[in-house]
């Protein structure tokens, strides 16, 4: 190997990188920015308590009130149905049932959920500590949640559909638009009588339609392979997928409306997508978040797409049940589209 050649290539590659402000920003500036933001968000302090649902009954109130004294546990008193629903939607990591004095407590969770084991250990520890002077103490019974609609996979599939809408919508539009700008195709279209609104609306329409089969393929996969229930309205699911596709393609369009290089759009996409991946409620329920994290999660379109999809898949949700998130998502998409149209750069 000729060192002179290696050195020349390395030098040129180094200079090329430093002379591209966008590449420098997204390589160095953005991670530093994220480090600062996430550093503030996850500063050391008290660990977040794990939420458990306790099936409310007079005997349970008597015995299980001790769980409320544990600072690492957050207890929600629920009816049987509400406890099952909360477990299925990931709002509680585990449910505790104690219906009869003298019997053993029943803990119910899906071990596939990351926080379920911790919740189980914390509950058992608390109960064992409270019964330390009882030689006849018996550990609670553990039931694995395997009823369709309440398992982690049931929670995950609607989230994956939401995540797919996010990725396909944003990358499909944003990246392609910038590539068209870089390749002068947008300039070429600009010098025809095509209006900006016609171009963007057509582009978004094409991409929004594309996401429908993708979303339903994941849905069918979940239903037929994993037995994920579909209890709600198919029409509502269809509308949700279309509106979800619309909002994410519109966001992609807004991000791409002025970006000049693929490095810039790549960075912008990551900056917007990464927080949604983490906090958008795909892999774990985000209802339990508090403070700025809760605010951030609630302001994310993915959160509302995921929740509404779970409403129509895991519960008998109809169009009427999810009209509010659908309207909010459609309006968000319209706002992004309007801004994208206003700021759009052809060249």
């Amino acid at each position, binding site marked *: 190997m000729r060192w002179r050649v290696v050195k020349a290539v390395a030098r040129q590659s180094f200079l090329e990188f430093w002379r591209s402000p966008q590449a420098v920003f997204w390589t160095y500036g953005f991670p530093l920015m994220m480090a600062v933001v996430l550093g503030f968000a996850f500063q050391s302090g008290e660990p977040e308590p794990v939420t458990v649902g306790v099936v409310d009954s007079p005997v349970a109130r008597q015995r299980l009130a001790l769980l409320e004294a544990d600072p690492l546990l957050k207890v929600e008193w629920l009816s049987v149905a509400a406890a099952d629903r909360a477990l299925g939607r990931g709002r509680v990591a585990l449910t505790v049932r104690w219906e009869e004095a003298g019997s053993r407590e029943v803990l119910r969770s899906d071990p596939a959920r990351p926080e379920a084991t911790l919740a189980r250990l914390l509950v058992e520890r608390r109960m064992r500590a409270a019964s330390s002077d009882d030689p006849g103490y018996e550990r609670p019974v553990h039931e694995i949640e395997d009823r369709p609609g309440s398992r982690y996979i049931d929670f995950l599939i609607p989230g994956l559909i939401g995540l797919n809408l996010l990725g396909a919508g944003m990358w499909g539009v944003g990246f392609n638009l910038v590539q068209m700008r870089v390749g002068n*195709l947008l300039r070429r279209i600009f010098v025809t*009588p095509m209006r900006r609104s016609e171009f963007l609306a057509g582009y978004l329409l094409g991409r929004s339609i594309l996401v429908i089969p993708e979303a339903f393929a994941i849905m069918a996969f979940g239903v037929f392979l994993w037995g994920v229930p579909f209890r709600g309205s198919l029409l509502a699911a269809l509308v949700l997928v279309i509106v979800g596709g619309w909002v994410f393609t519109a966001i992609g369009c807004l991000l791409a409306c002025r970006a000049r290089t693929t490095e810039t759009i790549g960075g912008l996409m990551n900056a917007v997508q990464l927080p949604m991946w983490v906090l958008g409620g795909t892999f774990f329920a985000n209802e339990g978040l508090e403070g700025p994290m809760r605010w951030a999660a609630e302001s994310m379109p993915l959160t509302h797409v995921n929740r509404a999809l779970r409403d129509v898949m895991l519960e008998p949700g109809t169009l009427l049940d999810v009209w509010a998130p659908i309207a909010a998502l459609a309006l968000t998409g319209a706002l992004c589209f309007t801004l994208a149209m206003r700021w759009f750069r052809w060249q």
Partner: protein
Amino acid sequence: MNTAPAIELRGLCKTYTKGREVVRAVDGLDLVVARGEVFGLLGPNGAGKTTTVEICEGLTVPDDGEVRVLGQEWRGGDDAAIRARIGVCLQETKFQEHATVDEVLRLFRACFERGRSVEEAIALVSLEEKRGARQKSLSGGQRQRLAVATALLGNPDLLFLDEPTTGLDPQSRRQLWRVVRDYQEQGGTVLLTTHYMDEAQQLCDRVAIVDQGRVIALGSPAELIRSLGAEHFVVVDLRDPDRAPEDAAFLSLPDVVAIDRRAGRIECTVASVHTALPPLLDMLEQQRVDLDGLTTRHATLEDVFVHLTGRHLREGGGA
């Protein structure tokens, strides 16, 4: 019917900032392109040709000056009406890689209320056999012909071609020239930029030579060449350049108008080869100077540019 010239430019100026450097790309340029002519903007890279064309196309806003395209001004409230009447072929356009010729043309055809059919456009640029081919399978010449076809779809009154044959092989260039001639025969007007002399001479009714953002010469290719005072060159290569006769010896010969020496080669501008050549050979023999080579050629627009600026077109505009 609107009989205004196809293009009128008055006092056009455009300045760019590149870092700390301010580049005056167009510097008080005046131009009138008549209807039905093929007009060439000729000049080295950086002369301001593309900026001028982009201003005419409505892609770039000038800092100063007047622009009228087909009698209308850009940003006068009806830009779409101008765009419906012009066809544009940019220096380079990357159509979507997986789109076929037919699909690209359908997309662009949809932009126009009236115009040619996709089939007609394909026939105009002889791409019938490639109709279903994707972009990545097209040659450079085929891609460029497709770009021209998209420009012809709206049946435009005015066609802009920005260096349409750069990088193409001779056959592809000739095919594109034929497309341009056919378009002109049907009454169309063309504004063409090029740095190929032969292209300008072959295609253009009139040519504006542009240098450093200004028009430095304007006329038909024949007129511009005649303006040199002589239309032929006799190029003399000597075996021993150090023994070359003085300029005065050449200039004293009949019909020799000018002398240019470059890298040991002597280029005599002559009014007529058959009258200038015999005395020139006699003079070299009398001075006992041995010839290494002797060629004659017609003057070109390149010679006009060299005559006007002292530089060759390929040397860059210096702007």
